């Protein structure tokens, strides 16, 4: 099936009633999750993960994808209206978005964000349609050594690019890998680190880890600083129309943000967050109105918001084409696919074309739904921000316990929520990145599988992992990125050359 046939087939799958409903529910739930503080896309998707098990794999994944890009849109609403990003990718939007709100342009900015998210999302979907099959064909050339390099090297890169210092990424990654070794070992069936607890035989539950780290730990932070809750001003429908100048100034940032976001989505790391920061920097460098950035310029919102939506969409490419998640949300999607018996990767396009093309085409449909629904519904989202903490926090916590228990009816998983939340809260205070722990837990079994397969097939010859050209290229790339920061420091110390930091301070 070529790309055009695939797109048409995918649209026929996406336009079935169940899948349209899944995309609608996902987009709306995602926007809600993005809007509400204390619940990011990762925790939100983790909470509905068990519910998606009851749907067929295509509908379940369509709903999860809808939540991901819906949350990207919703997160910007709080950033613009109350200077509080709903998720990390909208942090940079606060700078100009909130200043424009203070100037009375909130409604117009929200419309520009919706339009930018739509443009970024739709063009990125087209890129995914063309790029994913090509990458899947390359993936067919991969053996255990290449996949080992991609999973292990990708995890290392992800941990390093996630932000902060070396230890801030590597330490949580190591915890994630350690947790991935708990449970029954896949080849010999031997129990590892289960301490005689039957519930641990299946390993550490991903939903408990993600909801604890991202949901409950975040709620702890909200409860801790309860006094600072800000109430937004109402936004009326007649204020939603941007001026002609605002539209014309947004066109170029839409284009730049889309290209940048699409590229970032293909790379390991917190792609949506990095893309929005990079888009802001790009606007600061090339925009005709760069002198206004930071003081309330529409370019400072249009570029980053387009980029983060484009990145959220294109981050599906490595997952669908190679079966490798480069972020916590795609890691959850991988877990959902595994439960349904769908193995993402190079063979997915031929083995499960309905899921592959259906999910991609649904993103097109979901983005259209998002723009149609969100602009008129902005007053509803704004009114949700006025719901007091003492109402929505108990609801979220009750739903978190349901989501966690329902995966495998285990009270151990529910109890683990609190333990993980405490660990997440402390690690966040110490400025560690949490995403590498989640990705480590998901990629750990894959790394072990490819390592063992490689050793089996090469009769114990270690050189198999670093002699194939593809593996060499991947490992060289990993080494270069790992050495970037030490080289930057060395250049600054020895030669007095000052280079801007390439790795962000934090992405969470």
């Amino acid at each position, binding site marked *: 099936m070529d790309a055009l046939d695939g797109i048409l087939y995918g649209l026929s799958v996406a336009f079935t009633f169940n899948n349209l409903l899944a995309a609608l529910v996902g987009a709306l739930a995602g926007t809600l999750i993005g809007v509400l503080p204390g619940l990011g896309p990762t925790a939100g998707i983790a909470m509905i993960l068990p519910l998606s098990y009851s749907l067929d794999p295509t509908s379940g994944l369509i709903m999860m994808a809808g939540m991901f890009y819906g949350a990207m849109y919703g997160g910007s609403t709080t950033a613009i209206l109350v200077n509080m990003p709903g998720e990390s990718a909208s942090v940079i939007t606060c700078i100009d978005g909130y200043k424009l709100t203070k100037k009375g342009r909130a409604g117009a900015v929200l419309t520009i964000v919706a339009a930018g998210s739509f443009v970024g999302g739709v063009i990125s979907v087209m890129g995914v349609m063309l790029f994913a099959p090509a990458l899947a064909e390359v993936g067919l050339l991969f053996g255990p050594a290449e996949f080992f390099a991609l999973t292990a090297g990708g995890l290392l890169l992800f941990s390093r690019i996630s932000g902060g210092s070396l230890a801030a990424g590597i*330490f949580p990654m190591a915890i994630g890998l350690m947790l991935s070794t708990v449970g029954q070992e896949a080849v010999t069936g031997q129990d590892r680190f289960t301490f005689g607890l039957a519930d641990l035989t299946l390993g550490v539950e991903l939903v408990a880890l993600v909801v604890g780290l991202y949901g409950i730990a975040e709620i702890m932070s909200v409860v*801790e600083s309860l006094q600072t809750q800000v109430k937004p001003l109402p936004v009326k429908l007649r204020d939603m129309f941007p001026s002609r100048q605002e539209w014309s100034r947004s066109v170029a940032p839409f284009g730049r943000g889309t290209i940048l976001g699409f590229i970032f989505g293909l790379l390991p790391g917190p792609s949506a967050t990095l893309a929005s920061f990079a888009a802001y920097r790009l606007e600061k460098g090339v925009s005709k109105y760069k002198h206004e950035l930071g003081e309330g310029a529409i370019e400072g919102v249009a570029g980053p918001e387009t980029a983060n939506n484009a990145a959220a969409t294109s981050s599906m490419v490595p997952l669908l084409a190679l079966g490798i998640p480069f972020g916590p949300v795609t890691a959850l999607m991988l877990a959902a696919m595994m439960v349904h018996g769908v193995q993402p990767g190079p063979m997915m396009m031929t083995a499960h074309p309905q899921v592959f093309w259906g999910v991609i085409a649904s993103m097109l449909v979901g983005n259209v739904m998002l723009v149609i629904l969100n602009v008129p519904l902005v007053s509803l989202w704004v009114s949700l921000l006025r719901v007091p903490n003492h109402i929505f926090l108990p609801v979220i916590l009750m739903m978190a*316990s*349901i989501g966690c*228990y329902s995966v495998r009816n285990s009270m151990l998983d529910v109890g683990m929520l609190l333990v993980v939340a405490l660990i997440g809260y402390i690690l966040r205070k110490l400025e560690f990145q949490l995403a590498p722990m989640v990705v480590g837990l998901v990629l750990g079994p894959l790394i072990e599988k490819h390592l063992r397969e490689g050793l089996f097939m090469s009769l114990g010859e270690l050189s198999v992992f670093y002699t194939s050209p593809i593996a060499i290229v991947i490992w060289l790339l990993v080494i270069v990125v790992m050495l970037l920061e030490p080289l930057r420091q060395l250049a600054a110390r020895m030669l007095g050359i000052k280079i801007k930091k390439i790795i962000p301070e934090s992405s969470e």
Partner: protein
Amino acid sequence: MATQLPLGEMDAPGAGLFPVLVGAIMCFASLATVWEGWKTPRTDGIELPVGQDRTRLFKLIILLALYFTAMPWLGYSLSSWAFALLLMRLLSPLSWWRCGAYAALMTGVIYFCFIYLLKVPMPSFAFSF
């Protein structure tokens, strides 16, 4: 503990190989963390909650621990109602009666959506709710 698992041979690795490797990565990560902690100036302290903020946070943690402990004994609905009631009292100046009513409403809606409609199996009390 990882070393007690069978390591196998190079051409037939056992269940212990990967955990041993992960243990080595953990050692490296720990050393890197200690090294960075040692290098960081003492002025870069972490921001911990103080006063009422800290008390509220501790109370939330205790409430969550009690909620998760009580759930298998009291069932999902009763424990959730009590948890929501106490959490609302902690976070708001509302009276016990209003908190109780709101908690009942929240628990009822969640019970209806998830346990009744979506048939999510949750622990139940002696009266099956």
